[in-house]
């Protein structure tokens, strides 16, 4: 049979095998493992059969802990089960993993190994998660490449059934998991041959059955537990032999040689590196270069890590070995060394003791850390390790790949070490934006070449952490020989820049090799482009003899109706210029691929792509390059007035130079200053909103809905105008509350993403031309310069006194300074306007616990943070613990605040004679229920601090203590924020606990009805009929009514809001929630890119959601009055059919295009849901309910530690 080749990534390779060999697949999303689960869900939705002809049951659980529990149960019943995870997710599975292994249950967990969050979260790859799982009793098998993932996945599934020991199969996240490689596929016969049917039958026979009952999971006492624990030893002992046996069978069938450990290098090597995972590639390449040069070096790749193949490892080493470096991709602070190192040392020691080692002298062993959080690992880093191994006094423990100038552990990087290019290999780099389709086209190119020719192909893709205007860099390799380079391209033959603007922001040509070809998407033609290039780029082109080609891809895409998606325009140009394939063959292949990919989406889409391909080659031009005088300078990354840290550290991360920063540049505990997005002038909008003061009616709606705080409203005394230039726009402010004031609406041109939501909601239209509003989208190029000057002037106007306007109006809230600005959220994000509003209303006195998810990424992903400060330096203090524990985390903050406030008050009373009764009373009696009283409290506390600083003698200790707590005398709110995945699913238990606790916490659920951050997986907030990942066939059940659960407590303030439907209700709910002294929860409907809507009409969709009864607005205001009616229904009776609403969103509409009958059925049910919800809520509006409360509640925790029966209204406020 001829070998079948396909191009796929590691996640898909693992999923292909797992799906074939499973009956129950319990899943939960986590980066970078989610795609494995998504593939399985997609295939199950298409009723694809597994190896036994049945469709596996794919079930999404509420957390990884849940997924592991369901897996455990399925296994115990005797069904073949699998799951996928990474990082924290794996940690949540530990309790069940111990059980599954302890019960000798065959199973596999495929892990896209990822960093565990410590001082910071990281979604990238290392072995800190899997190394934490060593004690669970699972065998651990590692894959170093996509090919190995496919093969080792099968080995894991086959070996677990033979050995009864469960297998953890892992590969490096965001390298192997997402790298697209051409690999040799396994056929169903291969799978059948390795997975023996009798093993399956035996496993099934051990499953729970009332026909043949047993009891498992007993409790055991000291008398027997220990012995029983040792009883399973022979099974683990047999694992190595079984894995070796399965590997041999696989090698026999495929010709690909696998072993528990594999030695490569000189037979007489003296220096050997031990490595596991994707780092293997770089080490192997280095060994090849060095041995070719006659050096005595070698390497051992370890595949089975646990049970550790001690004898095999020692046996694999050449007897000549003198020194060994063991590389761990994890860090275990305080340990003698990392796990791989320790295992190796012990293995050598034991073999020497036993006299079985072949070497005369015990080799010296060094332990090194590399590649944490996907830090690049290249031959330039490997070479110095061999150098170190040759030294007389090497570093016993080292790190490599960074510059550690604090503990001086790092080895240098040998930048002069060059690995010769394999013959015939082409290396290409592409710089683009997420929105332009560059990565998609490159994945296609990898497949076109890999699957259509004899060449090998590899694609690796790097993304930045912004969700709007995100830059992507693609690294593609093609060649006749197997590609093992698992690191970024360092010397590209071909560089393409798909966005002209990136030339000013990134070192696009730094990695172009001498004589490279450079393809540039340029608005300037071949005759004029040269003079528009930044001088640095010109210089590199001249110095490296680079051949420059240009095409105006946006013009071509526009002509054929493809908008910003320039992928199909740029791709043919790459093929033409790179010469990987003959031009005609390449064009035919691209068209064939287009037909295959887009054919199912319709003929028109295919035709447009064809048109783009044909037109692109006509418009590609070679440029006569300089030498020419330098014409355009690259602007400084950040403004000169930025703080030193921003200039020295943040700016370098922004410029893509983070790898070059030394250890000493960083804070030791992960703390960073806030208010840094303002230095990151991204200028990503094509169009920005421009104010027309003649039409404006001062409503403030534009500022209210702006997801990026990029359109602002300021009201100021008329006298300020004198300080401003004539170009500055203003108009009279219409307000009964404030006379003789002016108003200005101003865009921050470089911070705006151009989403257009502000224009969509603007209600003011021109009397003479109805299409013109009080703000209108206009060309960025044409307006940016003037608007920049206006923005600077705007910033110079002092903020209005916070109590000048009532906060419960939109105008009143929108004159308050946003302390959440310019986040990297998606253009048109539905979440951020809520977050921004909270920051406006309470930002100067709040602390935030933020669940992991979109809001923690746009809120706290380096290099910058949108959480900001006011002129006095006050602003939200923000923190992210985990995904699963956010409510508890926030509650802990509340507990601390309460205890500290109580302590401060007690000290204040105690120090009254020193401080003065009047000031003490003023501070203690201040209710702090208005902006003015809070301002007064700040002044009084300042006065108190001044007094305390002067205290000496006996009271000094108390005074110092009070001084440290004085900030806690200012009323501070705790805001617990996160998405629906957190609040409805993984963190629900904690949310419930926080609500039940009765303490004053404000929970804001940014409800997008899916796990947005990980790509739109269904949560329990996902509505019926919506198609989401993990609900590929449309969700059958309705969304959970989280508000109803919260209302059940009676003392919880609950609001369901949608800004686009009622901004006043949103504003009111925020104020009420914060004012309520007990727990509050606000469930905020947040439009999301995952809804499949035009995000510029985000607010209109929210309006329709309410109008159709899909999302009724209400507030539940706990009342002490016996005849109180706490439930306030704030929206009107639905006037729009649900059908009309759902047809306007792709998440629903897609089901009508895949399963029309099911869609119609679910739509009818959704209408029934809405009708019933309305009927139920209408009745609730009449229900009387009151909360009994204690007369005098203690300030902090009640003496019995329980506050669940009260609403926590005490003197803490």
């Amino acid at each position, binding site marked *: 049979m001829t070998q079948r080749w396909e191009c796929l990534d590691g996640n898909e390779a693992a999923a292909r095998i797992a799906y074939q060999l499973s009956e129950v697949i319990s899943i939960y999303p986590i980066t970078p493992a989610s795609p494995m689960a998504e593939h399985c869900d997609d295939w199950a939705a298409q009723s694809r059969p597994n190896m036994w002809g049945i469709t596996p049951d794919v079930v999404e659980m509420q957390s990884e802990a849940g997924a592991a529990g369901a897996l455990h149960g399925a296994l115990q019943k005797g069904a073949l089960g699998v799951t996928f995870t990474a990082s924290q997710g794996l940690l949540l599975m530990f309790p069940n993993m111990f059980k599954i292994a302890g019960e000798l249950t065959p199973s596999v967990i495929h892990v896209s190994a990822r960093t565990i969050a410590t001082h910071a979260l990281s979604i990238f790859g290392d072995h800190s998660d899997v190394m934490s799982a060593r004690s669970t009793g699972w065998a651990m098998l590692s894959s170093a490449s996509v090919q190995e993932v496919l093969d080792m996945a099968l080995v894991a599934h086959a070996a677990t059934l033979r050995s009864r020991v469960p297998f953890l199969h892992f590969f490096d996240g965001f390298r192997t998991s997402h790298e697209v490689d051409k690999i040799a596929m396994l056929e169903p016969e291969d799978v059948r041959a390795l997975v023996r049917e009798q093993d399956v039958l035996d496993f099934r026979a051990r499953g729970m059955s009332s026909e043949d009952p047993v009891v498992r999971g007993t409790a055991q006492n000291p008398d027997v537990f220990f012995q029983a624990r040792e009883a399973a030893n022979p099974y683990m002992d047999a694992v190595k032999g079984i894995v070796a046996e399965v590997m041999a069978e696989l090698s026999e069938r495929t010709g690909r040689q696998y072993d528990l450990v594999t030695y490569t290098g000189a037979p007489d090597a003296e220096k050997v590196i031990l490595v596991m995972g994707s780092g293997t590639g770089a080490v192997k390449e280095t060994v090849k270069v060095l041995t070719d040069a006659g050096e005595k070096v070698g390497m051992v790749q370890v595949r089975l890590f646990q049970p550790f193949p001690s004898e095999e490892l020692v046996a694999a080493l050449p007897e000549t070995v003198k020194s060994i470096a063991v590389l761990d991709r994890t860090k275990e602070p305080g340990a003698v060394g990392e796990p791989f190192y320790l295992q190796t040392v012990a293995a050598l020691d034991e073999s020497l003791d036993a006299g079985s080692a072949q070497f005369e002298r015990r080799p010296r062993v060094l332990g090194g850390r590399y590649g944490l959080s996907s830090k690049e690992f290249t031959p330039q880093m490997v070479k110095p390790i061999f150098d170190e191994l040759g030294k007389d006094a090497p570093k016993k423990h080292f790190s490599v790949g960074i510059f550690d100038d604090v503990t001086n552990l790092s080895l240098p990087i040998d930048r002069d070490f060059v690995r010769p290019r394999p013959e015939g290999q082409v290396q290409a780099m592409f710089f683009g934006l997420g929105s332009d389709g560059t990565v998609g086209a490159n994945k296609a190119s990898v497949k076109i070449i890999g699957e259509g020719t004899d060449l090998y192909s590899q694609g690796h893709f790097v993304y930045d952490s912004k969700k709007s205007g995100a830059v992507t860099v693609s690294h593609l390799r093609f060649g006749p020989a197997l590609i093992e380079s698992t690191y970024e391209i360092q010397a590209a033959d071909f560089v393409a820049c798909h966005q002209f603007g990136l030339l000013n922001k990134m070192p696009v040509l730094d990695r172009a090799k001498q004589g490279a070809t450079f393809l540039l998407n340029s608005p300037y033609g071949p005759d004029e482009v040269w003079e528009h290039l930044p001088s640095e780029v010109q210089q590199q082109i001249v110095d490296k003899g680079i051949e420059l080609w240009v095409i105006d891809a946006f013009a071509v895409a526009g002509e054929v109706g493809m908008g910003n998606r320039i992928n199909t325009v740029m791709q043919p140009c790459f093929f033409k210029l790179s010469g990987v394939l003959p031009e005609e063959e390449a064009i035919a292949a691209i068209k064939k691929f287009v037909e295959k990919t887009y054919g199912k989406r319709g003929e028109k889409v295919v035709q447009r792509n064809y048109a783009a391909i044909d037109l692109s080659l006509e418009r590609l031009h070679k440029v006569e390059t300089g030498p020419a005088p330098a014409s355009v300078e690259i602007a400084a990354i950040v403004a000169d007035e930025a703080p030193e840290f921003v200039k020295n550290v943040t700016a370098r991360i922004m410029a893509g130079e983070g790898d070059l920063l030394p250890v000493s540049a960083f804070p030791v505990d992960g703390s960073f200053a806030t208010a840094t997005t303002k230095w990151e002038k991204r200028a990503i909008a094509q169009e920005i909103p421009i104010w027309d003061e003649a039409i404006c009616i001062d409503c403030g709606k534009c500022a209210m809905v702006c997801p990026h705080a990029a359109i602002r409203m300021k009201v100021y005394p008329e006298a300020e105008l004198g300080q401003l230039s004539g170009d500055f726009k203003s108009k009279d402010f219409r307000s009964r509350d404030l006379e003789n004031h002016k108003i200005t609406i101003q865009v921050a041109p470089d911070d705006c993403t151009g989403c257009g939501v502000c224009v969509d909601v603007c209600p003011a239209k021109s009397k003479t031309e109805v299409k013109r509003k009080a703000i209108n989208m206009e060309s960025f190029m044409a307006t940016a310069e003037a608007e920049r000057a206006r923005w600077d002037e705007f910033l110079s106007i002092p903020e209005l006194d916070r109590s000048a306007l009532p906060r419960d109006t939109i105008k009143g809230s929108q004159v308050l300074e946003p302390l959440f600005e310019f986040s990297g959220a998606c253009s048109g994000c539905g979440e951020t306007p809520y977050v921004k509003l909270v920051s406006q209303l309470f930002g100067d006195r709040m602390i935030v616990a933020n669940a992991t998810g979109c809001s923690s990424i746009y809120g706290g992903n380096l290099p910058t943070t949108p959480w900001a400060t006011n002129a006095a330096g006050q602003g939200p203090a923000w923190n992210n613990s985990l995904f699963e524990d956010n409510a508890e985390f926030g509650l802990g903050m509340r507990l601390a605040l309460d205890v500290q406030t109580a302590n401060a008050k007690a000290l204040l009373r105690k120090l009254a004679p020193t401080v003065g009764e009047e000031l003490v009373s003023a501070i203690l009696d201040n209710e702090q229920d208005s902006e003015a009283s809070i301002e007064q409290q700040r002044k009084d506390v300042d006065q108190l601090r001044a007094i305390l600083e002067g205290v000496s003698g006996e009271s000094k200790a108390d005074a110092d203590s009070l001084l440290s707590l004085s900030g806690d005398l200012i009323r501070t709110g705790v805001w617990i924020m996160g998405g629906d995945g957190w609040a409805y699913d993984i963190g629900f238990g904690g949310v419930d606990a926080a609500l039940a606790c009765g303490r004053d916490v404000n929970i804001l659920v940014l409800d997008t009805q899916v796990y947005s951050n*990980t*790509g739109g997986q269904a949560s329990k907030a996902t509505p019926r009929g919506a198609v989401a990942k993990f609900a590929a066939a449309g969700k059958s059940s309705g969304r959970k009514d989280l508000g109803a659960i919260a209302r059940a407590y009676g003392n919880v303030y609950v609001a369901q809001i949608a800004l686009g439907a009622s901004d006043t209700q949103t504003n009111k709910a925020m104020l009420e929630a914060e004012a309520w002294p007990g727990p509050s929860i606000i469930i905020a409907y947040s439009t999301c*890119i995952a809804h*499949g809507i035009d995000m510029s009409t985000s607010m209109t969709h929210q309006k329709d959601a309410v109008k159709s009864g899909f999302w009724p607005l209400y507030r539940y205001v706990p009342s002490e009055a016996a005849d109180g009616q706490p439930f306030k229904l704030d929206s009107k009776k639905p006037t729009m059919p649900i059908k009309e609403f759902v047809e306007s969103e792709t998440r629903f509409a897609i089901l009508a*295009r895949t399963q*029309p009958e099911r869609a119609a059925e679910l739509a009818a049910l959704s209408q029934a849901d809405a009708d019933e919800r309305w009927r139920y809520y209408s009745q609730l509006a009449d229900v009387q309910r009151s909360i009994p409360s204690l007369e005098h509640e203690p300030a902090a925790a009640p003496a019995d530690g329980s506050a669940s029966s009260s609403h926590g209204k005490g003197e803490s406020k």
Partner: protein
Amino acid sequence: MTVDLSTRYLGLELRSPLVVSANPLTREPEAVAKFEEAGAGAIVMPSLFEEEIENEEIELAASLDQGTEGFAEALDYFPEVDTFIGEGDRYLRSLETLKRQSAVPIIASLNANSVGGWVRFARLMADAGADALELNLYRINVDPSRTSVDVEDEDLELIAAVRAAVTLPLAVKLSPYYSALAHFAGQVVEAGANGLVLFNRFYQPDIDLDELAVVPRVSLSHPSELRLPMRWTAILRPQLGPEVSIAATSGVHSGGDAVKALMVGADVAMMASAVLRDGPGKIADIEAEMRLWLEENEYSSVMQLRGSASQGSVEDPATFERAQYIRTLHSWAAPPNLIPTA
């Protein structure tokens, strides 16, 4: 005496001249069953618009592409769609369903903006079992450089192309806005149409005064709108001869309206607004009214009635021409409050 209601339309034998014309309900199996039960002679499905198919494809592709491959944790936002049932597929499925359940003819309707689109879908509709095809020439010609001849030639080319592609009976639904309608109608027949549907009602845009926005607004027809198709049916019936089918549509709301339409020469009276307003049962009411009138006036069949008052059959043929306008104006009396009294 039982009146014979049967008629022939596009070569199809219909049990009744009351046909439900294209409207959103004629795609819904349940509604169609009710129309049939109420006595409809045939059903015309709503037009399949080529632009709608294309827009759907493009919008969906754009929507699924939105935000993809830009952010490491979310490389896309929707599950992989393996098969995609577009508007065209859904239409054909509905057609198949209706054919399976109905005893009366099902006429598919098509509006395309390219020759390719017309031909492709005409064939698919024929394959799906349509009894006849109605081509809907729905266009607003706003290009000032195009003459009436350009516009008409293009329409005729489309009709000829479809004629060449399918053997199904073909009706062409016209708008009343052709400058030389009588001439054009003849050419349409020459190009291969078996019948004409008079007329298409264009939904006119409206202004929303609250939003200051132009909005599409559907308004149902009024009985007075029947006059226009009546006039042209009367004029064209003798010109085109008895073999060419004519359907009168717009403003048929009662048995009397249907009788009038048939009387001036229509083979069928089509209705949409009446059933949208009053429900499918309206057809039975209209049929009863029509039957009663025919009985009272001692007609034995619809065939007898058909064309009895066409332009060729009336005493004063000019009634259907311009002179009638003057008479109508003269016959109009101003409401009393309009003219001030001395």
